[in-house]
Protein backbone atom coordinates (compact mmCIF):
# COMPACT_ATOMS: atom_id res chain seq x y z
CA UNK A 1 0.00 0.00 0.00
CA UNK A 2 1.55 3.24 -1.07
CA UNK A 3 1.48 5.94 1.54
CA UNK A 4 -0.22 8.96 0.06
CA UNK A 5 1.91 12.02 -0.55
CA UNK A 6 -0.32 14.15 1.54
CA UNK A 7 -0.01 11.82 4.46
CA UNK A 8 3.77 12.04 4.21
CA UNK A 9 3.48 15.78 4.10
CA UNK A 10 1.43 15.94 7.25
CA UNK A 11 3.75 13.57 9.09
CA UNK A 12 6.72 15.62 8.00
CA UNK A 13 5.04 18.80 9.15
CA UNK A 14 4.35 17.37 12.56
CA UNK A 15 7.82 15.90 12.99
CA UNK A 16 9.52 19.10 12.01
CA UNK A 17 7.24 21.18 14.15
CA UNK A 18 7.86 18.97 17.16
CA UNK A 19 11.60 18.97 16.57
CA UNK A 20 11.74 22.72 16.24
CA UNK A 21 9.56 23.24 19.23
CA UNK A 22 11.49 20.88 21.46
CA UNK A 23 14.77 22.40 20.41
CA UNK A 24 13.67 25.83 21.41
CA UNK A 25 12.08 24.45 24.53
CA UNK A 26 15.31 22.83 25.70
CA UNK A 27 17.25 25.98 25.02
CA UNK A 28 14.88 28.04 27.07
CA UNK A 29 14.76 25.42 29.77
CA UNK A 30 18.48 25.87 30.22
CA UNK A 31 18.13 29.58 30.74
CA UNK A 32 15.10 29.16 32.92
CA UNK A 33 16.85 26.71 35.19
CA UNK A 34 19.62 29.06 36.10
CA UNK A 35 17.41 32.12 36.31
CA UNK A 36 14.86 30.44 38.51
CA UNK A 37 17.36 29.54 41.17
CA UNK A 38 19.59 32.52 40.76
CA UNK A 39 17.33 35.53 40.35
CA UNK A 40 15.94 35.46 43.88
CA UNK A 41 19.47 35.65 45.22
CA UNK A 42 20.33 38.84 43.38
CA UNK A 43 20.14 41.75 45.80
CA UNK A 44 22.14 44.94 45.78
CA UNK A 45 24.69 43.66 48.28
CA UNK A 46 25.53 40.85 45.92
CA UNK A 47 26.76 43.28 43.35
CA UNK A 48 28.55 45.52 45.75
CA UNK A 49 30.45 43.13 48.00
CA UNK A 50 33.47 41.13 46.98
CA UNK A 51 33.58 37.36 47.36
CA UNK A 52 34.42 36.08 50.83
CA UNK A 53 35.45 32.65 52.06
CA UNK A 54 36.70 31.61 48.64
CA UNK A 55 33.34 32.53 47.17
CA UNK A 56 31.07 30.80 49.60
CA UNK A 57 29.71 34.10 50.76
CA UNK A 58 29.70 37.75 49.87
CA UNK A 59 29.13 39.04 46.39
CA UNK A 60 30.77 39.45 43.04
CA UNK A 61 31.87 43.07 42.97
CA UNK A 62 35.49 42.32 42.14
CA UNK A 63 34.44 40.05 39.32
CA UNK A 64 32.18 42.74 37.91
CA UNK A 65 35.10 45.15 37.91
CA UNK A 66 37.22 42.46 36.36
CA UNK A 67 34.73 41.78 33.60
CA UNK A 68 34.37 45.51 32.93
CA UNK A 69 38.10 46.20 32.86
CA UNK A 70 38.86 43.31 30.56
CA UNK A 71 36.08 44.23 28.16
CA UNK A 72 37.13 47.88 28.03
CA UNK A 73 40.74 46.99 27.23
CA UNK A 74 39.64 44.57 24.54
CA UNK A 75 37.30 47.07 22.88
CA UNK A 76 39.73 49.98 23.07
CA UNK A 77 42.32 47.93 21.22
CA UNK A 78 40.23 45.93 18.81
CA UNK A 79 37.89 48.68 17.59
CA UNK A 80 40.43 51.03 15.99
CA UNK A 81 42.31 48.09 14.50
CA UNK A 82 39.14 46.49 13.20
CA UNK A 83 37.53 49.63 11.82
CA UNK A 84 40.84 50.69 10.32
CA UNK A 85 41.14 47.37 8.53
CA UNK A 86 37.58 47.66 7.25
CA UNK A 87 38.19 51.20 5.96
CA UNK A 88 41.34 50.01 4.25
CA UNK A 89 39.54 47.12 2.59
CA UNK A 90 36.62 49.21 1.39
CA UNK A 91 38.02 52.65 0.65
CA UNK A 92 41.65 52.25 -0.18
CA UNK A 93 41.91 49.09 -2.24
CA UNK A 94 39.99 47.03 -4.68
CA UNK A 95 39.89 43.25 -4.80
CA UNK A 96 43.57 42.53 -4.99
CA UNK A 97 46.10 40.19 -3.53
CA UNK A 98 46.43 42.25 -0.38
CA UNK A 99 42.71 42.30 0.30
CA UNK A 100 42.45 38.57 -0.30
CA UNK A 101 45.25 37.91 2.16
CA UNK A 102 43.64 40.09 4.79
CA UNK A 103 40.27 38.44 4.35
CA UNK A 104 41.83 35.02 4.58
CA UNK A 105 43.59 35.97 7.79
CA UNK A 106 40.39 37.36 9.24
CA UNK A 107 38.32 34.30 8.35
CA UNK A 108 40.89 31.96 9.82
CA UNK A 109 41.25 34.00 12.97
CA UNK A 110 37.50 33.81 13.43
CA UNK A 111 37.68 30.05 13.52
CA UNK A 112 40.41 29.66 16.11
CA UNK A 113 39.01 28.10 19.29
CA UNK A 114 39.23 30.03 22.52
CA UNK A 115 41.59 27.62 24.23
CA UNK A 116 44.17 28.23 21.53
CA UNK A 117 43.81 31.95 22.11
CA UNK A 118 44.37 31.15 25.76
CA UNK A 119 47.57 29.26 25.03
CA UNK A 120 48.75 32.04 22.75
CA UNK A 121 47.92 34.76 25.21
CA UNK A 122 49.72 32.88 27.92
CA UNK A 123 52.94 32.31 26.06
CA UNK A 124 52.99 35.69 24.30
CA UNK A 125 51.56 38.27 26.68
CA UNK A 126 52.01 36.65 30.06
CA UNK A 127 55.46 35.13 29.52
CA UNK A 128 57.19 36.54 26.46
CA UNK A 129 56.18 40.16 26.92
CA UNK A 130 56.35 39.75 30.67
CA UNK A 131 52.95 41.20 31.45
CA UNK A 132 52.06 38.41 33.82
CA UNK A 133 48.53 37.29 34.55
CA UNK A 134 46.82 40.63 34.29
CA UNK A 135 43.99 42.70 32.94
CA UNK A 136 46.35 43.80 30.18
CA UNK A 137 47.23 40.28 29.08
CA UNK A 138 43.62 39.19 29.19
CA UNK A 139 42.36 42.29 27.43
CA UNK A 140 44.89 42.00 24.62
CA UNK A 141 44.04 38.34 24.12
CA UNK A 142 40.33 39.11 24.01
CA UNK A 143 41.03 41.94 21.55
CA UNK A 144 42.57 39.38 19.21
CA UNK A 145 39.51 37.18 19.61
CA UNK A 146 36.95 39.84 18.76
CA UNK A 147 38.96 41.47 15.99
CA UNK A 148 37.41 39.36 13.18
CA UNK A 149 33.90 40.17 14.38
CA UNK A 150 34.56 43.90 14.33
CA UNK A 151 36.25 43.77 10.94
CA UNK A 152 33.31 41.86 9.45
CA UNK A 153 30.55 44.07 10.80
CA UNK A 154 32.43 47.28 10.10
CA UNK A 155 33.03 46.20 6.54
CA UNK A 156 29.36 45.38 6.03
CA UNK A 157 28.36 48.74 7.47
CA UNK A 158 30.77 50.65 5.25
CA UNK A 159 29.78 48.62 2.21
CA UNK A 160 26.13 49.52 2.64
CA UNK A 161 26.74 53.23 2.20
CA UNK A 162 25.71 54.21 -1.34
CA UNK A 163 28.44 55.18 -3.75
CA UNK A 164 26.53 58.34 -4.61
CA UNK A 165 27.28 59.81 -1.18
CA UNK A 166 30.98 59.45 -1.81
CA UNK A 167 30.68 60.81 -5.35
CA UNK A 168 28.92 63.90 -4.03
CA UNK A 169 31.63 64.47 -1.45
CA UNK A 170 34.45 64.12 -3.95
CA UNK A 171 32.55 66.30 -6.41
CA UNK A 172 32.44 69.06 -3.82
CA UNK A 173 36.19 68.99 -3.47
CA UNK A 174 36.61 66.50 -0.67
CA UNK A 175 39.75 64.45 -0.21
CA UNK A 176 39.57 60.74 0.48
CA UNK A 177 40.11 61.12 4.16
CA UNK A 178 37.55 63.96 4.43
CA UNK A 179 35.00 61.82 2.66
CA UNK A 180 35.64 58.91 4.99
CA UNK A 181 35.52 61.04 8.11
CA UNK A 182 32.46 63.13 7.24
CA UNK A 183 30.28 60.85 5.16
CA UNK A 184 31.27 57.20 5.43
CA UNK A 185 32.04 56.78 9.11
CA UNK A 186 29.14 58.75 10.60
CA UNK A 187 26.70 56.78 8.50
CA UNK A 188 28.38 53.46 9.19
CA UNK A 189 28.43 54.16 12.90
CA UNK A 190 25.33 52.17 13.95
CA UNK A 191 26.56 49.09 12.11
CA UNK A 192 30.00 49.42 13.63
CA UNK A 193 28.48 49.86 17.07
CA UNK A 194 26.56 46.63 16.65
CA UNK A 195 29.81 44.84 15.90
CA UNK A 196 31.41 46.36 18.97
CA UNK A 197 28.51 45.19 21.11
CA UNK A 198 28.84 41.70 19.72
CA UNK A 199 32.48 41.84 20.71
CA UNK A 200 31.50 42.95 24.19
CA UNK A 201 29.10 40.04 24.48
CA UNK A 202 31.81 37.63 23.49
CA UNK A 203 34.29 39.10 25.96
CA UNK A 204 31.84 38.88 28.81
CA UNK A 205 31.16 35.20 28.24
CA UNK A 206 34.69 34.07 27.45
CA UNK A 207 36.27 31.82 30.04
CA UNK A 208 39.03 29.54 28.73
CA UNK A 209 41.19 32.29 27.29
CA UNK A 210 40.63 34.51 30.29
CA UNK A 211 41.69 32.01 32.93
CA UNK A 212 44.96 31.38 31.15
CA UNK A 213 45.81 35.03 30.75
CA UNK A 214 44.17 37.09 33.46
CA UNK A 215 44.50 34.65 36.28
CA UNK A 216 41.77 33.96 38.76
CA UNK A 217 42.30 36.22 41.71
CA UNK A 218 39.05 37.40 43.20
CA UNK A 219 40.64 40.35 44.97
CA UNK A 220 40.01 43.87 43.76
CA UNK A 221 42.58 44.77 41.13
CA UNK A 222 45.05 47.60 41.79
CA UNK A 223 46.12 48.31 38.27
CA UNK A 224 46.12 47.08 34.73
CA UNK A 225 48.80 44.65 35.72
CA UNK A 226 46.78 42.94 38.42
CA UNK A 227 45.22 39.57 37.87
CA UNK A 228 41.45 39.41 38.04
CA UNK A 229 38.54 37.08 37.80
CA UNK A 230 35.65 37.76 35.51
CA UNK A 231 32.05 36.82 36.26
CA UNK A 232 32.21 33.92 33.85
CA UNK A 233 35.40 32.58 35.41
CA UNK A 234 33.99 32.98 38.91
CA UNK A 235 30.88 31.10 37.86
CA UNK A 236 32.98 28.31 36.40
CA UNK A 237 35.18 27.93 39.45
CA UNK A 238 32.24 27.95 41.85
CA UNK A 239 30.46 25.29 39.85
CA UNK A 240 33.36 23.02 39.11
CA UNK A 241 34.98 23.10 42.50
CA UNK A 242 31.58 22.67 44.09
CA UNK A 243 32.20 25.62 46.37
CA UNK A 244 28.69 26.90 46.57
CA UNK A 245 25.79 26.05 44.34
CA UNK A 246 23.85 29.02 45.63
CA UNK A 247 26.53 31.50 44.70
CA UNK A 248 26.96 29.75 41.38
CA UNK A 249 23.31 30.14 40.53
CA UNK A 250 23.38 33.78 41.51
CA UNK A 251 26.49 34.54 39.49
CA UNK A 252 25.11 32.64 36.55
CA UNK A 253 21.87 34.56 36.70
CA UNK A 254 23.80 37.83 36.77
CA UNK A 255 25.83 36.71 33.78
CA UNK A 256 22.76 35.77 31.77
CA UNK A 257 21.05 39.08 32.54
CA UNK A 258 24.12 40.99 31.40
CA UNK A 259 24.30 39.08 28.14
CA UNK A 260 20.57 39.56 27.61
CA UNK A 261 20.91 43.31 28.01
CA UNK A 262 23.86 43.55 25.64
CA UNK A 263 22.18 41.43 23.00
CA UNK A 264 18.88 43.25 23.21
CA UNK A 265 20.59 46.59 22.74
CA UNK A 266 22.54 45.22 19.78
CA UNK A 267 19.41 43.82 18.18
CA UNK A 268 17.51 47.05 18.74
CA UNK A 269 20.32 48.97 17.11
CA UNK A 270 20.36 46.57 14.20
CA UNK A 271 16.62 46.88 13.76
CA UNK A 272 16.68 50.64 13.87
CA UNK A 273 19.66 50.83 11.57
CA UNK A 274 18.21 48.42 9.03
CA UNK A 275 14.89 50.17 9.33
CA UNK A 276 16.52 53.49 8.52
CA UNK A 277 18.61 52.26 5.63
Amino acid at each position, binding site marked *: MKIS*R*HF*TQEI*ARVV*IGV*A*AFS*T*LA*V*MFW*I*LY*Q*VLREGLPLLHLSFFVEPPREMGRAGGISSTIIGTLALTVVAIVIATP*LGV*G*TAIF*LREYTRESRISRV*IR*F*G*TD*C*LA*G*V*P*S*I*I*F*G*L*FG*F*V*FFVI*FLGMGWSILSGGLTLA*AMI*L*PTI*ICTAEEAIKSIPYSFREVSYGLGGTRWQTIRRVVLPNAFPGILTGVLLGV*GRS*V*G*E*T*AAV*ILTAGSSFLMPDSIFSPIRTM*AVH*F*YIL*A*REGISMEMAYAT*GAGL*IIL*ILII*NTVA*NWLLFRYVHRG
Partner: protein
Amino acid sequence: MALSSISVLALIAFFIFEEGLPLMWKVGLQSFLLGDRWFPSKGSFGIFPMIVGSFWVTLGALVVGVPLGLACAIFLCELTSPKVGMVLRPMIQLLAAIPSVIYGFWGLIVLVPLIRNHLGGPGLSILAGSFVLGIMILPTIISISEDSLRALPRIYKEGALSLGATHWQTIWRVLLPAARSGIVASIILGMGRALGETMAMIMILGNAAQMPHSILNSARTLTTNIGIEMGYASGDHRAALFATGVVLFFIIMGLNSLALVISRKGRA
Protein backbone atom coordinates in the same frame (compact mmCIF):
# COMPACT_ATOMS: atom_id res chain seq x y z
CA MET B 1 46.99 48.61 10.73
CA ALA B 2 45.00 46.63 8.26
CA LEU B 3 47.45 43.80 8.32
CA SER B 4 46.68 43.28 11.98
CA SER B 5 44.45 40.27 11.51
CA ILE B 6 46.89 38.36 9.42
CA SER B 7 49.77 39.27 11.71
CA VAL B 8 47.88 38.16 14.79
CA LEU B 9 47.17 34.86 13.09
CA ALA B 10 50.82 34.49 12.19
CA LEU B 11 51.88 35.30 15.75
CA ILE B 12 49.50 32.72 17.16
CA ALA B 13 50.70 30.04 14.82
CA PHE B 14 54.31 30.92 15.46
CA PHE B 15 54.20 30.81 19.22
CA ILE B 16 52.01 27.76 19.56
CA PHE B 17 54.19 25.84 17.17
CA GLU B 18 57.33 27.11 18.83
CA GLU B 19 56.22 25.77 22.17
CA GLY B 20 54.67 22.57 21.01
CA LEU B 21 56.59 21.24 18.06
CA PRO B 22 59.88 20.48 19.84
CA LEU B 23 58.09 18.15 22.18
CA MET B 24 56.30 16.41 19.36
CA TRP B 25 59.66 15.79 17.78
CA LYS B 26 61.16 14.61 21.04
CA VAL B 27 58.44 12.12 21.80
CA GLY B 28 58.00 11.14 18.21
CA LEU B 29 54.99 12.06 16.09
CA GLN B 30 53.61 8.56 16.01
CA SER B 31 53.80 7.85 19.70
CA PHE B 32 52.35 11.27 20.47
CA LEU B 33 49.36 10.93 18.24
CA LEU B 34 48.75 7.24 18.61
CA GLY B 35 50.05 6.51 22.07
CA ASP B 36 47.24 5.75 24.45
CA ARG B 37 48.95 6.50 27.72
CA TRP B 38 48.82 9.98 29.14
CA PHE B 39 50.88 10.06 32.35
CA PRO B 40 52.69 13.39 32.36
CA SER B 41 54.40 12.73 35.66
CA LYS B 42 56.03 9.69 34.15
CA GLY B 43 56.85 11.39 30.87
CA SER B 44 54.23 9.48 28.92
CA PHE B 45 52.54 11.74 26.35
CA GLY B 46 50.18 9.83 24.13
CA ILE B 47 47.07 11.78 23.18
CA PHE B 48 45.16 9.10 21.35
CA PRO B 49 42.51 8.77 24.07
CA MET B 50 41.85 12.47 23.73
CA ILE B 51 41.61 12.24 19.97
CA VAL B 52 39.10 9.45 20.36
CA GLY B 53 37.26 11.42 23.00
CA SER B 54 37.05 14.47 20.76
CA PHE B 55 35.87 12.31 17.91
CA TRP B 56 33.05 10.63 19.79
CA VAL B 57 31.83 13.79 21.46
CA THR B 58 31.82 15.67 18.17
CA LEU B 59 30.09 12.85 16.38
CA GLY B 60 27.47 12.70 19.10
CA ALA B 61 27.01 16.44 18.90
CA LEU B 62 26.38 16.17 15.17
CA VAL B 63 23.89 13.36 15.69
CA VAL B 64 21.98 15.59 18.06
CA GLY B 65 22.53 18.93 16.39
CA VAL B 66 22.18 18.28 12.69
CA PRO B 67 18.69 16.79 12.52
CA LEU B 68 17.31 19.25 15.05
CA GLY B 69 19.13 22.15 13.43
CA LEU B 70 17.92 21.29 9.95
CA ALA B 71 14.41 20.82 11.26
CA CYS B 72 14.51 24.27 12.80
CA ALA B 73 15.95 25.78 9.64
CA ILE B 74 13.20 24.23 7.53
CA PHE B 75 10.65 25.28 10.11
CA LEU B 76 11.82 28.90 10.07
CA CYS B 77 12.18 29.11 6.35
CA GLU B 78 9.18 27.27 5.05
CA LEU B 79 6.67 26.51 7.71
CA THR B 80 6.11 29.74 9.58
CA SER B 81 5.14 33.26 8.71
CA PRO B 82 7.83 35.93 8.42
CA LYS B 83 6.52 37.60 11.56
CA VAL B 84 7.15 34.56 13.70
CA GLY B 85 10.55 34.30 12.11
CA MET B 86 11.35 37.85 13.07
CA VAL B 87 10.74 36.99 16.69
CA LEU B 88 12.44 33.62 16.71
CA ARG B 89 15.59 34.51 14.89
CA PRO B 90 16.88 37.08 17.39
CA MET B 91 16.04 34.59 20.11
CA ILE B 92 18.22 31.98 18.49
CA GLN B 93 20.98 34.54 18.15
CA LEU B 94 20.59 35.28 21.82
CA LEU B 95 21.00 31.63 22.67
CA ALA B 96 24.17 31.63 20.63
CA ALA B 97 25.53 34.38 22.82
CA ILE B 98 25.04 32.49 26.06
CA PRO B 99 28.45 31.56 27.44
CA SER B 100 29.48 27.95 27.25
CA VAL B 101 29.93 27.77 30.99
CA ILE B 102 26.19 28.21 31.46
CA TYR B 103 25.48 25.30 29.13
CA GLY B 104 28.07 23.27 30.99
CA PHE B 105 26.47 24.16 34.27
CA TRP B 106 23.06 23.02 33.12
CA GLY B 107 24.56 19.80 31.86
CA LEU B 108 26.19 19.27 35.24
CA ILE B 109 23.08 19.97 37.28
CA VAL B 110 20.40 18.38 35.17
CA LEU B 111 21.76 16.00 32.59
CA VAL B 112 24.55 14.29 34.48
CA PRO B 113 22.41 13.10 37.41
CA LEU B 114 19.71 12.07 34.93
CA ILE B 115 22.12 9.84 33.08
CA ARG B 116 23.69 8.54 36.24
CA ASN B 117 20.38 7.56 37.74
CA HIS B 118 18.72 6.10 34.68
CA LEU B 119 21.51 4.76 32.53
CA GLY B 120 24.29 4.07 34.93
CA GLY B 121 27.89 5.08 34.94
CA PRO B 122 29.24 8.21 36.58
CA GLY B 123 26.92 10.42 34.59
CA LEU B 124 29.86 12.59 33.61
CA SER B 125 30.02 11.03 30.22
CA ILE B 126 30.35 11.30 26.49
CA LEU B 127 26.59 11.04 26.24
CA ALA B 128 26.08 14.12 28.38
CA GLY B 129 28.78 15.98 26.51
CA SER B 130 27.35 15.10 23.11
CA PHE B 131 23.91 16.27 24.05
CA VAL B 132 25.00 19.61 25.44
CA LEU B 133 27.45 20.19 22.63
CA GLY B 134 24.74 19.37 20.12
CA ILE B 135 22.58 22.09 21.60
CA MET B 136 25.47 24.52 21.55
CA ILE B 137 26.10 24.11 17.84
CA LEU B 138 22.42 24.44 16.95
CA PRO B 139 22.51 28.22 16.32
CA THR B 140 25.38 27.79 13.87
CA ILE B 141 23.66 25.06 11.91
CA ILE B 142 20.28 26.76 12.00
CA SER B 143 21.41 30.17 10.83
CA ILE B 144 23.69 29.05 8.01
CA SER B 145 21.31 26.38 6.74
CA GLU B 146 18.42 28.77 6.84
CA ASP B 147 20.42 31.37 4.93
CA SER B 148 21.23 28.78 2.28
CA LEU B 149 17.60 27.81 1.94
CA ARG B 150 16.54 31.42 1.75
CA ALA B 151 19.11 32.20 -0.90
CA LEU B 152 17.66 29.70 -3.32
CA PRO B 153 15.93 31.29 -6.29
CA ARG B 154 12.16 31.23 -5.82
CA ILE B 155 11.83 29.54 -9.15
CA TYR B 156 12.98 26.26 -7.59
CA LYS B 157 10.08 26.18 -5.21
CA GLU B 158 7.55 27.64 -7.59
CA GLY B 159 8.58 25.31 -10.37
CA ALA B 160 8.27 22.23 -8.22
CA LEU B 161 4.92 23.25 -6.78
CA SER B 162 3.52 24.06 -10.17
CA LEU B 163 4.45 20.57 -11.31
CA GLY B 164 2.13 19.22 -8.66
CA ALA B 165 4.53 18.44 -5.83
CA THR B 166 3.36 18.84 -2.27
CA HIS B 167 5.12 21.32 -0.03
CA TRP B 168 7.06 18.65 1.77
CA GLN B 169 8.08 16.93 -1.45
CA THR B 170 9.38 20.25 -2.68
CA ILE B 171 11.41 20.71 0.43
CA TRP B 172 12.76 17.20 0.54
CA ARG B 173 13.46 16.61 -3.12
CA VAL B 174 14.23 20.05 -4.49
CA LEU B 175 15.16 22.65 -1.91
CA LEU B 176 17.35 20.64 0.44
CA PRO B 177 19.50 19.13 -2.30
CA ALA B 178 19.86 22.54 -3.91
CA ALA B 179 21.01 24.08 -0.64
CA ARG B 180 23.28 21.15 -0.06
CA SER B 181 26.57 22.99 -0.15
CA GLY B 182 25.44 25.60 2.34
CA ILE B 183 24.05 22.94 4.66
CA VAL B 184 27.22 20.90 4.47
CA ALA B 185 29.24 24.02 5.17
CA SER B 186 27.11 24.70 8.23
CA ILE B 187 27.70 21.16 9.47
CA ILE B 188 31.42 21.47 9.03
CA LEU B 189 31.47 24.79 10.83
CA GLY B 190 29.38 23.22 13.58
CA MET B 191 31.98 20.46 13.78
CA GLY B 192 34.71 23.03 14.13
CA ARG B 193 32.82 24.74 16.89
CA ALA B 194 32.23 21.46 18.67
CA LEU B 195 35.86 20.47 18.46
CA GLY B 196 36.95 23.81 19.89
CA GLU B 197 34.63 23.81 22.87
CA THR B 198 36.40 23.62 26.18
CA MET B 199 34.65 24.88 29.29
CA ALA B 200 31.36 23.06 29.00
CA MET B 201 33.20 19.85 28.23
CA ILE B 202 35.46 20.18 31.24
CA MET B 203 32.38 20.47 33.39
CA ILE B 204 30.54 17.43 32.14
CA LEU B 205 32.86 14.94 30.52
CA GLY B 206 34.48 13.62 33.61
CA ASN B 207 38.06 14.00 32.49
CA ALA B 208 39.32 10.47 32.61
CA ALA B 209 42.47 10.38 30.52
CA GLN B 210 41.77 6.88 29.28
CA MET B 211 40.35 5.29 26.19
CA PRO B 212 36.58 5.43 26.43
CA HIS B 213 34.75 2.21 25.66
CA SER B 214 31.16 3.33 25.78
CA ILE B 215 29.26 6.54 25.66
CA LEU B 216 28.63 6.28 29.35
CA ASN B 217 32.33 6.51 30.10
CA SER B 218 34.05 9.66 31.18
CA ALA B 219 36.60 10.97 28.74
CA ARG B 220 38.73 13.89 27.72
CA THR B 221 38.91 15.84 24.53
CA LEU B 222 41.92 17.59 23.06
CA THR B 223 40.57 20.84 24.39
CA THR B 224 39.75 19.72 27.90
CA ASN B 225 43.16 18.12 28.16
CA ILE B 226 44.71 21.53 27.73
CA GLY B 227 42.16 23.33 29.84
CA ILE B 228 42.44 21.12 32.87
CA GLU B 229 46.18 20.76 33.17
CA MET B 230 47.45 24.08 31.90
CA GLY B 231 47.00 25.61 35.31
CA TYR B 232 49.75 23.55 36.89
CA ALA B 233 51.81 22.11 34.07
CA SER B 234 55.46 22.93 33.56
CA GLY B 235 58.39 21.90 31.45
CA ASP B 236 57.76 18.96 29.15
CA HIS B 237 54.23 18.60 30.44
CA ARG B 238 53.38 22.11 29.42
CA ALA B 239 55.06 21.65 26.07
CA ALA B 240 52.94 18.56 25.51
CA LEU B 241 49.82 20.63 26.09
CA PHE B 242 51.01 23.12 23.51
CA ALA B 243 51.64 20.24 21.19
CA THR B 244 48.02 19.19 21.72
CA GLY B 245 47.17 22.73 20.72
CA VAL B 246 49.14 22.33 17.52
CA VAL B 247 47.13 19.25 16.59
CA LEU B 248 43.89 21.06 17.39
CA PHE B 249 44.97 24.07 15.35
CA PHE B 250 45.58 21.97 12.27
CA ILE B 251 42.35 20.04 12.53
CA ILE B 252 40.20 23.12 12.97
CA MET B 253 41.97 25.19 10.34
CA GLY B 254 41.52 22.30 7.96
CA LEU B 255 37.82 22.03 8.72
CA ASN B 256 37.18 25.76 8.40
CA SER B 257 39.03 25.97 5.11
CA LEU B 258 37.01 23.02 3.87
CA ALA B 259 33.80 24.78 4.84
CA LEU B 260 34.86 27.96 3.04
CA VAL B 261 35.76 26.08 -0.11
CA ILE B 262 32.51 24.16 -0.13
CA SER B 263 30.35 27.19 0.46
CA ARG B 264 32.13 29.17 -2.26
CA LYS B 265 31.83 26.36 -4.74
CA GLY B 266 28.14 26.08 -3.98
CA ARG B 267 27.61 29.74 -4.56
CA ALA B 268 29.28 29.65 -7.95
